[in-house]
């Protein structure tokens, strides 16, 4: 993991002191709300329905146990004993007092964390594969590039006031766990014909009110030219992006308006002008890379009694089937920790649970914790002989729900329960669906099915790329929900298609169940929900949901 140096720490200390002064001036009336609002947002502090919310950046989703314990401490001292992991792999605290915010930032800075660039029209937290450095199908560790992008983009003077916010994802596996194609820039690490590594560059993906799967504008960019090329993309966007209309200001609108080829030509011309001066020296890349060496996993480990326990304990076997993934090293596994306990709030984690995760990571997980954009956590390096103990530790605090990628592993934004912009609630819809499909045998029989729920068209709950997407809408002041089918945030990225008229809240779970039953009737062989839908089209599902409306 990358560790801050003295300069990084000095920058954070200065920034917190500056914000403390700004808060004092706001409370005294020296600053108006209009003057203060952009300053607090630059430090991740939003005003929500019930209180201030602080969004803390978790750089490319990586945390160490010390940081996780610090988050637990903040949750207890300054919030109501919990935090909320988001689809940006950040963590939010929902009940923050304005006067406490500088103290929280100090507590974060003490463990090399902050809330800078978690809001505003700047380059936000980079999304990385949560299995980075551990995935069996990985080309190389993408976090090296995520960290380099973090350093390059932090407080970047040219890119701090873009037309709109800007999100980058980096993945190095053929299976995309970052939703790269619906980011402003998606970087897919590839091996070139010369044996070197480079990136397929995708630009102009996004969700919100105009969802786009981003087109590839460069099939192969040598990795040592990454930063000049990023600079060229951002410069073209800064120059031509729509600043006159907030709803047309994202880069996806520019790429769509110009066409991907014309946009790429603009970028190439700008890239030519920038030349190699915009690139990161190899020595600097190597310095960053040295922070991401594979942990010392020791010699060939024994799997101990892993197989025997798996055979003897059905509940453990279920956890292994759903929450344990292949590691690049024999004898190790990647443990997914579901933050989707049945009936719980997706992404929420209590301070006690944070501390248990920190302890388990320290004892059994090489001190490495990841947050996923699907609002779960990961211990990426666990010896198979320790998985049973990890499972028991998680189960003791309600974190061993064996539902990764199953129907109750639902993404939901905070929605109208917290968010000032939301039209409708999302959390209670997720809770109700999870309860309906609580029976684990039934959930496993259904198989991979990703439900994603947003409380408004801003799509923080990624509904556009849900296999079943659910969007809360406001119909004359009442909560209604629009269903979409067929979305995907993976390598087969797609935007879901609207199924029919929006439904009242008390019909949503029944509609989801009708869709599931239609799928089970229609599927053949080992088809996933998406496979069946793509083969049959949405007619059987529309009929199932709206049959009684005819």
């Amino acid at each position, binding site marked *: 993991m990358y560790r801050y140096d003295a300069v990084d720490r000095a920058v954070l200390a200065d920034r917190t002191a500056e914000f403390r002064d700004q808060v004092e001036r706001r409370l005294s*009336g020296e600053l108006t*709300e209009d003057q203060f609002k952009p300053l607090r947002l630059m430090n991740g502090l939003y*005003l929500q329905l019930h209180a201030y919310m602080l969004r803390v950046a978790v750089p490319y989703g990586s945390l160490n146990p010390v940081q996780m314990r610090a988050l637990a401490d903040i949750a207890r001292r300054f919030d109501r004993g919990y935090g909320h992991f988001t689809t940006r792999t950040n963590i939010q605290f929902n009940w923050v007092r304005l006067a406490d915010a500088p103290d929280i930032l100090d507590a974060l800075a003490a463990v090399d964390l902050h809330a800078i660039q978690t809001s505003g029209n700047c380059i936000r937290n980079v999304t990385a594969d949560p299995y980075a450095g551990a995935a069996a199908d990985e080309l190389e560790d993408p976090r090296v590039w995520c960290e380099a992008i973090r350093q390059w983009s932090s407080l970047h003077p040219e890119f701090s006031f873009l037309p709109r916010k800007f999100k980058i994802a980096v993945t190095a596996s053929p299976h995309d766990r970052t939703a790269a194609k619906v980011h402003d820039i998606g970087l897919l690490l590839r091996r070139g014909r010369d044996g070197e590594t480079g990136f397929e560059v995708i630009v102009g993906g996004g969700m919100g009110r105009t969802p786009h799967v981003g087109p590839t504008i460069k099939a192969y960019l040598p990795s040592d030219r990454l930063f000049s090329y990023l600079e060229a993309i951002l410069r073209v966007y800064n120059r031509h992006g729509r600043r006159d209309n907030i709803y047309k200001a994202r880069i996806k609108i520019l790429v769509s308006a110009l066409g991907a080829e014309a946009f790429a030509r603009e970028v190439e011309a700008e890239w030519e002008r920038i030349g190699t001066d915009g690139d990161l020296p190899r020595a600097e890349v190597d310095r960053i890379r040295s922070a991401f060496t594979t942990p010392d996993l020791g010699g060939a480990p024994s799997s101990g009694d892993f197989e025997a326990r798996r055979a003897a304990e059905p509940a453990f076997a279920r956890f292994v089937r759903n929450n344990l993934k292949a590691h690049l090293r024999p004898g190790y596994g990647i443990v997914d920790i579901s933050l989707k306990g049945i009936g719980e709030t997706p992404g929420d984690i209590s301070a006690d649970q944070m501390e248990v995760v920190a302890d388990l990571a320290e004892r059994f997980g090489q001190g490495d914790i990841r947050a996923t954009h699907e609002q779960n956590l990961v211990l990426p390096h666990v010896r198979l002989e320790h998985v049973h103990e990890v499972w028991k530790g998680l189960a003791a605090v309600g974190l061993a729900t064996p539902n990764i990628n199953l129907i109750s592993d639902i993404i939901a934004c905070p929605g*109208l329960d917290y968010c000032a912009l939301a039209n409708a609630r999302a959390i209670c819809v997720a809770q109700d669906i999870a309860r309906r499909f609580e029976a684990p045998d039934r959930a496993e029989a259904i198989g991979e099915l990703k439900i994603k729920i947003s409380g408004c068209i801003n799509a923080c709950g990624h509904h556009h790329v849900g296999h079943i997407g659910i969007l809360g809408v406001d119909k004359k*002041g*009442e909560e209604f929900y629009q269903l979409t089918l067929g979305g995907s945030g993976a390598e087969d990225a797609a935007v879901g298609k609207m199924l029919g008229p929006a439904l009242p809240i008390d019909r949503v779970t029944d509609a989801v169940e009708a869709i599931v039953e239609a799928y089970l009737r229609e599927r053949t062989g080992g088809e996933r929900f998406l496979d069946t839908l793509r083969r049959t089209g949405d007619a059987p599902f529309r009929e199932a949901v709206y049959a009684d409306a005819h």
Partner: protein
Amino acid sequence: MKALTANRLSDGEVVFWKDGAWVERLAEAGLFDEDGPAASAEAAARGQPTLVIDPYLIDLVDSSGFWAPVSYRERIRALGPTNHELHGKQAEGGGAVEALRQAHGAARSSGRVNLIRRK
């Protein structure tokens, strides 16, 4: 019937206007049955920028003998998040909270409309 609401500057708490000051419970809020006094109170509230942020008027309906916001969003503001019943004002329980939970009515929140307009 109307009430005047805002978020308190110091902690973001949802508050309601009562005789020139701010209270945390809707049941204790001052009520306006005429537009003139309501607008005057809103103007006065805008003159308290070190106490509250973005004051605005909300419409109320009768619910089991208590006044409740017509807008669902405003009922959630007056209660707290529905996923954590021990968080927010609803934790106190009692007749006023129950009346808010049982209230019906649908209308867009002027608070949200103002927020979107300012974006």
